[in-house]
């Protein structure tokens, strides 16, 4: 079942004529001519679609919080900042099929009553920005953007805004600051963007994938969308698969397939590269807890783990993780967990905006301590020190970047403490290029 990527490999699907030949923009016609904004919102609510940017918050509910004071403009801002390590799905979708996002932007802006909308794209993706701008121009030329779209009386202007290289601008209030031309420092909440967002006006911020899915929902109905998936994990999800698998890439999966299938089936990742075995997975982008092979394939209770919000978080942080942004990083037995954790710690240290001291200082500490462990200068107390620093950050910051920095470190130690100990106890072995700890009798199976 493919909703977002059904036609993604059709030649020239990035041009509006080919896109329309394959049913593109039918949702705009349907929504603007046959539905009211509230009816569109109602379908999105029924669909059960949850925000695909990482937090998984129900999209229809988020929309219904939007304040609608008379005479004040409202904005829809698409979050295309995609910078969470392991995640490259929005990049893929916008690059291959820009009109899929633009169609969703029109439908969603209509539902929210926004007459100006922005797509905030990370600045590194300048070539994707050019693709989007060309596609937007095509949509204007066809009367799908601009004044009185398709004679419906609805006006919409759509612009692309480049970022400047800062992960924190993916956090929605930092994104709004950045879009206002400032440094990307997250705001204190409340007020929430739904009340005071862009230029203090009511604003909805949604991820690329979330917005893109609304067209299909308009065309086919919220119930049809909700019929895909399992429980509260409805619809399809783009998974960015990377690491030691046979076929890295972006896959659109119906939520609810098993993790095992996703890793080993030829339809998806195609299994671990030849001659190697699965060791660990970071299932939802760098911010979520890493899990060892045995806990990612089955839950602690012995049930097959599914690619759903609920199943991946089964066991809480003791034995579970999160679906997050769907950045699925697979590691075989050659991966050094300490090294990988170090790159993530460096990342968060580099990306902390510095506003809150637990995050600013804590990320620096974790980077420094893991760095010395990796380089054979660690002390055995360092492991507990890391756990302690992670705890001090968690829950004590303005925005969730602090948690996102703490969780991966805490989880790596929780599940791979012996690997950290080995680095500390055998620096002469651990610092050899390519050296990796092998756990005796490790259960990494296939």
């Amino acid at each position: 079942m493919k909703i977002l990527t059904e036609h993604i490999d059709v030649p020239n699907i990035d041009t509006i004529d080919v896109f329309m030949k394959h049913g593109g923009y039918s949702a705009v016609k349907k929504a603007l001519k046959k539905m009211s904004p509230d009816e569109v919102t109602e379908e999105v609510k029924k669909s059960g679609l949850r925000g695909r940017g990482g937090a998984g918050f129900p999209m229809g509910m988020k929309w219904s919080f939007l304040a609608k004071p008379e005479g004040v403009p409202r904005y829809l801002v698409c979050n295309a900042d995609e910078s969470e390590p392991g995640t490259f799905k929005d990049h893929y979708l916008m690059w291959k099929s820009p009109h899929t996002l633009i169609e969703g932007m029109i439908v969603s802006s209509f539902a929210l009553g926004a007459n100006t909308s922005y797509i905030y794209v990370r600045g590194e993706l300048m070539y994707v920005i050019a693709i989007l701008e060309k596609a937007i121009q095509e949509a204007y030329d066809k009367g799908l953007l601009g004044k009185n779209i398709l004679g419906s009386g609805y006006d919409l202007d759509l612009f692309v805004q480049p970022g400047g290289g800062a992960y924190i601008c993916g956090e929605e209030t930092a994104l709004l600051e950045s879009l206002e031309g400032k440094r990307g420092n997250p705001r204190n909440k409340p007020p929430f963007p739904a009340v005071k967002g862009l230029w203090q006006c009511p604003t909805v911020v949604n991820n690329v994938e979330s917005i893109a899915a609304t067209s299909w929902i308009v065309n086919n109905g919220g119930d049809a969308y909700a019929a895909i998936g399992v429980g509260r994990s409805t619809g399809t999800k783009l998974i960015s698969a990377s690491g030691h698998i046979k076929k890295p890439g972006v896959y659109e999966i119906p939520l609810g397939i098993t993790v095992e299938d996703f890793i080993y089936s030829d339809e998806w990742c195609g299994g671990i590269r030849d001659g190697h075995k699965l060791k660990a997975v970071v299932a939802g982008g760098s911010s979520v807890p890493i899990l060892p092979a045995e806990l990612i394939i089955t839950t602690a209770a012995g049930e097959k783990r599914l690619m759903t919000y609920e199943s991946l978080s089964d066991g809480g942080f003791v034995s579970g993780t999160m679906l997050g942004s769907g950045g699925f990083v697979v590691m075989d037995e050659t991966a050094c967990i300490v090294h990988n954790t170090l790159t993530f710690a460096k990342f968060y240290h580099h990306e902390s905006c510095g506003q809150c001291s637990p995050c600013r200082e804590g990320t620096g500490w974790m980077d420094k301590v893991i760095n010395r462990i990796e380089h054979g200068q660690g002390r055995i107390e360092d492991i507990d020190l890391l756990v302690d620093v992670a705890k001090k950050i968690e829950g004590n910051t303005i925005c969730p970047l602090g948690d996102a920095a703490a969780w991966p470190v805490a989880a790596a130690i929780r599940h791979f403490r012996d690997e950290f100990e080995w680095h500390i106890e055998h620096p002469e072995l651990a610092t050899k290029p390519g050296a990796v700890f092998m756990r005796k009798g490790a259960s990494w199976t296939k």
Partner: protein
Amino acid sequence: MSKIVFPAETLELVKKIIARYPEGKQKSAILPILHLAQAEWKWCSPEVMDYVGTLMSISPIEVYEVASFYTMFHLEPVGEHVIEYCRTGPCCLMGGVEVYDHLKKRLKINTGETTKDGKFTIKEVECLAACGWGPVFQIREKYYMHLTNEKVDQIIDELSK
């Protein structure tokens, strides 16, 4: 350096960019304009940032404040080609460490340095949202993916011509 003024067609584009935002909210144009400035002059020197401030009728300090927050803006001179490689975990799993070492050896410089002839600068950046296609680096707007040592050599050969 010759006088810092955008060419006429870029100035037209600047006007269009400023018109994307409501009256009084023109400060939003700062990132797009800084990108244009960097494309024009390779790096954001104080003079360039002052010029951006003048264009937008904001004080120079406001421009520095913003430019220094975002890693894409080079506040120091750089070489003709700035190679920004992704050092984050997934790219390392895909063999990034070896490939980037090769790049540094090939150019005989370290991260953060520029070759003597001023042709190349190497910078280390975080995840470029291309993890499954790694290892990856970026030179201006172009992404170079699935890098191997041989590919790196080819790219450097090509750009050295």
